[in-house]
């Protein structure tokens, strides 16, 4: 076992630091996003569609110009500096990014000259591992295969940081599991990090160290996954259990004839009557209840 122990008390190098990122669009605004990703960890970005996950990633990659806020990517604080460290950055974006007619070979030939550390053998291995067909044109690949090809290209130049936008969306459960293992291998030496956005939160819950939860362009939470999950409990009870005080405290309340369910801050869950059931939550439930809460607030 040659892997080094990393003590969490030791000051870590941040591969990404974002402070106060704000970007205004006509119908959407990303407001005051702040987080940092130290070397050696996996960070997940969750939130409903249109929450601002992709915009945040695009800002990191200088594809959009933020209205305000500081971005540091692999030590680069200016757009030029961030571009200079692209060799250390592997990216997979949501949607297609290669011409229709390219095959695996063309992707390698086109990208290799740009990355001094491009590893043709590794790329070939990755393609074989992920069962990417060699002769199929990019446009004829399934969405999952397109994502895999992007992943292979992202990994092939030995980056220090992976930024992935919805990498698991088109993958079947087996491929998803393989990808997660791959990501854990990637960060295993404590020097590499992964930032990924997803709305398939089940994957994230186990392997992510940090989570950034965005909704409507606003940051809801940033921190350890365990802390986020520990901060809320799921409450369930009969119709009689729903006191006005409880009703005011519950987030995303759902009432039905025989009872109710909702989310409650963990601290408020201690002094509930014994008839109310409390359960630990999952990220998915968290997102559902928060989403419903926002909906209800809008309607009233």
């Amino acid at each position, binding site marked *: *076992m040659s*892997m*080094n*122990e*990393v*003590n*969490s008390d030791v000051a870590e190098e941040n591969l990404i630091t974002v402070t106060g990122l704000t970007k205004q669009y006509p119908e959407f605004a990303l407001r005051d996003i702040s987080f940092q990703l130290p070397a*050696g*960890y*996996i960070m997940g970005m969750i939130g409903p569609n249109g929450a601002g996950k992709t915009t945040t990633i695009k800002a990191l990659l200088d594809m959009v110009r933020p209205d305000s806020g500081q971005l540091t990517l692999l030590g680069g604080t200016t757009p030029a500096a961030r571009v200079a460290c692209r060799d250390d950055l592997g990216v997979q974006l949501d949607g297609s990014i290669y011409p229709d007619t390219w095959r695996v070979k063309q992707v390698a030939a086109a990208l290799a000259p740009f990355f001094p550390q491009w590893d043709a053998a590794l790329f070939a291995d990755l393609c074989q591992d992920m069962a990417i067909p060699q002769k199929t044109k990019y446009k004829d690949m399934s969405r999952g295969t397109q994502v895999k090809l992007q992943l292979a290209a992202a990994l092939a130049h030995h980056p220090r940081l992976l930024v992935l936008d919805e990498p698991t969306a088109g993958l079947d459960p087996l491929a998803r599991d393989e990808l*997660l*293992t791959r990501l*854990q*291998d990637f*960060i*295993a*030496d*404590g020097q590499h990090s992964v930032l990924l956005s997803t709305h398939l939160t089940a994957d994230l819950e*186990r*392997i*992510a*160290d*940090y989570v950034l939860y965005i909704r409507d362009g606003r940051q809801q939470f940033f921190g*350890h*996954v*365990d802390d986020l999950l*520990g901060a809320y409990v799921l409450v369930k009870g009969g119709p009689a259990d729903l006191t006005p005080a409880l009703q005011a405290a519950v987030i995303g309340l759902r009432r039905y004839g025989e009872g109710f369910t909702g989310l409650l801050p963990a601290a408020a869950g201690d002094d509930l009557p014994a008839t109310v059931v409390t*359960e*630990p939550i999952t990220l998915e439930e968290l997102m559902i209840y928060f989403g419903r809460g926002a909906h209800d607030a809008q309607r009233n």
Partner: protein
Amino acid sequence: MRIVVSNKAGQPIYQQIEDQIKTAILSGDLAAGTLLPSIRQLARDLQISVITTTRAYHDLEEQGFVTNVQGKGSYVLGQDSALVREHALRDIEQYLGQALDAAALAKIPPAELHTMLDTLIAAEGGTDVHE
């Protein structure tokens, strides 16, 4: 060493890891001075996050089960017998308590409990021969 984590146990994953390592140490499966797998290795193997694993190791260190040597890893600390005995007694007390609760629910007299315990000890002794 055997560690199995369950998503459905209703117990936080770091707690599960902590408990299982503790059990292994107390049962003598992990001898003093054994190097535990590194945090990252274990996280990878169990497909769980690094920070969860770190937290489990951290707790174990605080409770005096392991020690972290900078740059090397975590080693199992030798447990003095009084401490081991104390842990064991606490566990036994807890389990017997549960047995008594169950007996009270089913209205089983204490005498019958004593008989059951004797039978179990005899059976365990039988299996012990193999080891």
